[in-house]
């Protein structure tokens, strides 16, 4: 209960800031990235014998900044409605856990990606992808552990399971940022 309320309040604050950044001109871009976040969970990438699905919150953060909050919230709401992932009551917590790391990646690495040379872009993109997943995994583990002490072990397992996800996301975010910078710089701006 305290976790749900805290998550809801933090997410609402983030969404309130993010909504101010939405206007008629950047709506298609935000919606496309929101939809991409939604679809990313369906794209499976092999890691050793297992596979992980993409999260892409680092990439979305780097491209959207604060608007990542409404984008991710809308996407999670759709997932809850269409696939029964997550749920409506946990929407606040989930939004915060996914979008806050995205915004952190934006503030730490965005500048380096936009102004740096290719090497710097690769490094910053990779760090952005890794950091977003790492921070999300820690937040998810904390939310679970604070919800009930019984969730402590599953929370630790979730944390460990995210290490390969971090590596994959780092590599993919890095390549993706370089690709977008070369092919479609408009997507990177504003």
């Amino acid at each position, binding site marked *: 209960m305290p976790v749900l309320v805290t998550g809801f309040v933090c997410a609402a604050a983030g969404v309130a800031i993010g909504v101010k950044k939405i206007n008629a001109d950047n709506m*298609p871009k935000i*919606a496309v990235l929101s939809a991409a976040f939604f679809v990313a969970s369906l794209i499976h990438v092999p890691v050793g014998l297992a596979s992980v699905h993409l999260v892409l919150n680092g990439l979305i953060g780097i491209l959207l900044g604060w608007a990542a909050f409404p984008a991710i919230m809308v996407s999670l709401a759709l997932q809850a409605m269409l696939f029964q992932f997550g749920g409506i009551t946990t929407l606040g917590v989930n939004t915060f856990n996914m979008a806050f790391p995205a915004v952190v990646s934006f503030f730490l690495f965005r500048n380096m990606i936009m102004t740096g040379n290719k090497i710097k872009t690769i490094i910053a993109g990779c760090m952005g992808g890794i950091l977003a997943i790492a921070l999300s995994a820690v937040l998810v583990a904390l939310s679970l552990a604070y919800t009930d002490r019984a969730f402590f072990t599953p929370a630790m397992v979730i944390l460990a399971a995210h290490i390969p996800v971090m590596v994959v996301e780092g590599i993919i975010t890095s390549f993706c940022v370089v690709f977008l910078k070369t092919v479609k710089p408009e997507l990177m701006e504003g």
Partner: protein
Amino acid sequence: MNLNDTISESGSSILYRLDPRVKLICVAAFSIVVALSHQMSALIFAVFLTSVVVILSGVPAGKLLHRMIVANVFIAVLWLFLPFTMTGSPLFSVGPIEASKEGARYAAMLTLRSNAIILVMIVLMATTSVTSIVHALTRLRIPDSVVYLFFFTYRYAHEIVREYTRIHNAMKIRCFTPGTNIHTYKSYAYLVGMLLVNSYERGLRIRAAMICRGFTGKFPSFDSPRIRHYDIVAMVVTALTLAGMVMFNVG
């Protein structure tokens, strides 16, 4: 990868006719009460109620079951941990590890709680089109930009899935076999990049097409937003049962 938004949109049961706003409010209130319930009796009552709603809704059983299985995979994982990690009176043991009654009880409550919420969500989505949900959200005073973002995301999600399938097929035709190597990750990164570029351009075209057809940033609704007598009945019944569930939790 199938993105069917509704299980069956056309139906005749009472749940199809309820006002989407009423359905949204009832489902949200129900989900919150169920999520906060911590008594076994209240949760069993909740699952019983949702079963009644499911039967009333007339949603096809096969598709319902399919969605239930998908949603229950995560819960099955929790069953592997919770009985063993919670301490309490022993239930059974696997080798040196002992399962506790408290753990099993906790996992059972979690299963009931999740399934009750999942079931009402499935019924909501099966009996309401996304367009009417968009209208309902606008009328419930959710900020316009969030509602439009919701609508466009939903609209573009279909495009992105189609685009993904197209590019992925193109890769497969060219003998792309995914593995744990940098080539695979690079290919997937470019796939995502191309997906964003193509969808962004298509998104702009969709927007331009909508503006050409007179889109002013508002979604006009043709169905009357009148609350009918059965809407009031549904609200009262929901309020009463929720009050009942709160009583179960307190008493």
